[in-house]
């Protein structure tokens, strides 16, 4: 078996009384576009900086392709990083910035020139090599930073919130570009972000972090549809969550459970006992007047909900509803018949399919 590109084992790091990393373990496959996602302060940047060697871990091991590199200084790690604020050296030109790492690797002058030109072409900045970083736009600077890392033909690239300094439109463009760049290479990307859209749209796999721990690990679809805990459920997209109590215990998989709306078919992500949290994504709640339930109808979970508030947002309708004293959100495609049917104040029948009715543990480990 080929070793993992990166293997993190039992890594811990404290800053004073703050625990930045709490016994974190993680394997990243070669060639993966791996995301570390979490709110600020969750430890994701610390983990990335420890991978780069810019921070030291208090304990634990880090293996790059099977080799322990925990004691290697940063300049020997060979894992170039894309810094959040770019960290382009203002006293060097764009080309000199890109060439920096090559110069440190004692590569011949002609080779450097060639590879810098290639890298500039790769990020579509041909002809801007003689500019100073300050003369480039934010998006262009971002490409230079990418080129500076990729020009080294690394096995691993680390990206620290690379899009956070860009405006919304550019961020979208660059997101696509990073995805495309990754697809063209076989480099392992470790990408830190607090923006779930970036992670959900780009990641091969991702780790959701909070308070120095990894709370979810898997593909974006898995984590979105079958979040392992309430934190992942609410951090990745919107979620309707309401607690349930029952006697005894439930296995993981399809189950039947009694809810304020009656007896429902649901899917449990883990074995549960006595309590659970029911999660329904807003887009999974569907109005019967607009969309007929799938056959056989008996397999769908039904509820009556009163529309408290509705707001049109472009292609979607956002609804706030109340059912059995539970507040629910729903998102429906903005079609004329939907607008007609979903008037504020109406009480309507809704349904949700059993495999979109998810039961979670009611607490995050």
């Amino acid at each position, binding site marked *: 078996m080929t070793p993992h590109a990166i293997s993190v084992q039992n890594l811990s790091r404290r800053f004073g009384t703050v625990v930045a990393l709490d016994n974190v373990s993680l394997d990243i496959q070669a060639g993966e576009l791996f995301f570390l996602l979490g709110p600020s302060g969750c430890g994701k940047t610390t983990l990335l900086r420890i991978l780069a060697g810019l921070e030291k871990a208090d304990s634990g091991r880090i293996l790059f392709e099977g080799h322990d590199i925990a004691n290697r200084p940063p300049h020997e790690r*060979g894992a170039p990083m894309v810094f959040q604020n770019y960290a382009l050296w203002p*006293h060097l030109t764009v080309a000199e910035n890109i060439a*920096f*790492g090559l110069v440190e690797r004692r590569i011949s002058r002609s080779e450097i020139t060639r590879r810098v030109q290639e890298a500039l072409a790769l990020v579509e900045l041909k002809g801007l090599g003689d500019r100073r970083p300050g003369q480039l736009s934010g998006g262009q600077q971002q490409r230079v930073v990418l080129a500076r890392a990729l020009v080294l033909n690394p096995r691993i690239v680390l990206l620290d919130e690379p899009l956070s300094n860009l405006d919304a439109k550019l961020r979208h463009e660059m997101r696509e570009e990073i995805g495309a760049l990754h697809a063209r290479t076989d480099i392992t990307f470790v990408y830190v972000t607090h923006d779930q859209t970036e992670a959900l749209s780009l990641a091969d796999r991702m780790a959701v972090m909070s308070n120095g721990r990894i709370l979810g690990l898997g593909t974006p679809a898995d984590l979105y549809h079958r979040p392992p805990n309430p934190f992942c459920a609410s951090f990745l997209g919107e979620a309707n969550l309401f607690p349930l109590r029952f006697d005894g215990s439930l296995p993981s998989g399809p189950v039947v459970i009694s809810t304020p709306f009656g007896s429902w078919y649901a899917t449990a992500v883990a074995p549960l006992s006595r309590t659970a949290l029911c999660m329904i994504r807003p887009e999974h709640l569907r109005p019967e007047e607009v969309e007929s339930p799938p056959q056989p109808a008996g397999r769908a979970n039904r509820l009556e909900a009163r529309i408290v508030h509705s707001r049109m947002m472009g292609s979607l309708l956002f609804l706030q509803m109340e059912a059995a004293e539970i507040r629910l959100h729903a998102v429906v495609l903005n079609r004329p018949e939907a607008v007609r049917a979903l008037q504020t104040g109406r009480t309507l029948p809704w349904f949700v399919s059993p495999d979109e009715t998810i039961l979670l543990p009611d607490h995050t480990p």
Partner: protein
Amino acid sequence: MNRLRLPVQLLVLATVAYLGFFLIWPLAHVFENAFRDPRGFTPFYIVNLFRNPAVREAARNSFLLALLVTLLTTAIALPLAWLFSRHTFPGKTPLSAALLLPMILPPFVSAVGMKILFARAGAISTLLMRLGLANQPVDWFGAQPLLGIVVLESLHLFPILFLNLSAALANIDPSLEEAALNLGATPGRVFRRVTLPLAAPGLFAGMTLVFVWSFTELGTPLVFGVRRVLPVLIYDGVAEIGSNPAAYAQVVFVLLVAALGFWIGKYATNRHRQVATLGRLSVSRTEVSLSPLGSILAWLALATLLFVAVLPHLSILFLAVSRRWFLTVLPESWTLAFIRQALDSDLTRAALVNSLGLSLAATFLDAALGFSIAWICLRTRLWGRDALDALAMIPLAVPGLVVAFGYLGAFGSVFRGSLLDPRHNPYILLAAGYSIRRLPYMVRAAHAGLEQVSLTYEEAAANLGASPWRIVQRITLPLLSANLLAGAILCFAFSMLEVSDSLILAQAERFYPLTKAIYTLMDALENGVNVAAALGAWAMLLLGAALLWATALLGRRIGQMFRTG
């Protein structure tokens, strides 16, 4: 700001007139006289300047001196700044304050102490002979008097470079260094390829300041008896100011060198500054804490440096309380008589009163002018305000020696016998000279303060009905008070210890400021050196307290006061 237009214009006019009269005109006079003799215009004296080997030697010595001082200062300040900006260790804060100590005495006073300490029959020499390490008295500075000056001026000036460099290093975004490490550069290479180029503005600014300062320093060579440097040559030429254009030519040369050095520093600073403000400080810097052994080594190095730097000051204190210090390690006997004498002889008391009065006058003038200029530049859209700022910065490039010489030449000939004639009464010109010399520092202090005071505070006040004048009074000035006060303290302290103006302009004893009194006392045959040292000790106390106060007010930003760019 429409309602302020007339007052502002009057203010600008007054400021320009003041600078024009007390700075530009004397300089113009110097230039005019360097190119003129009774027969009219002639480039003879400038051309002939270096045909005189004595002048050549003086110029060579001055350059060498300034160069060595700059190099030595850099060699001391660079590692220090790196240590302090990238590391933590116990006692760092008090130590960084202690590093300002060497500035509290003009080097020409500490030179007296040094000279006695390192005299042939002085304490160090005697100690070596007692220890059997030398069998004849060692003539430390007799053989290489330039060396003494270099050491002394470097010890005096390294804090300025240290402050400049520390600020520059602190302003470097840590991620720029991390990126270099990350891309494969060893720490040493990171320093050379990233840190040093990015700190270059601060480094250059500081080095320029040090170079110009030591190139034009008059007092220290005078005390060391080194006559073959340009400032002393010019000082000797003061007596011939009406009859010999050669001194004017020398002054012009010194001025040009100083201006050139300043311009080079400024140019280099600007070139880098255009690009150095990219992005924001993203990561807070994590300072490496030194290991216990590292801390001990750092402590040892700093203690040695401080001890050496403070040694001249200590010897001044010794000298002030000692009787007979000849072929012995410690003085033969102790006395407080000189300390007392330093406060109750006619000369010293008049000098203290003069210096206090003149420095206060200069300080008030500077505070008013400095605030006005900074305010005009930052808060009005007045045409030519940048030129005003540039005008106020000119004194940075004009050595005190040149100002004083210009005053003596210009005011002494045109306003003969009036209160503007330094030979008749130098008070006005001394105050003007002090204020002109320190004005840039005050402008900078006010400038830095104003930049930190958000415009919105003033807009809010206007919005709530305050007139522009009331805004200045109720919002701007109170918010700026710490900066202005700190600037004023420094301005006062350095005016108290201004050397070349005082030495050249004050010719009658009752007009002597502190520094000239000290210089005069050093010349006295009986115990004059001791009384001079005692007076120096008092000055040290005064300036030390002032610097501490200013540091307490400004904290780390004190470095801003000494920057050229």
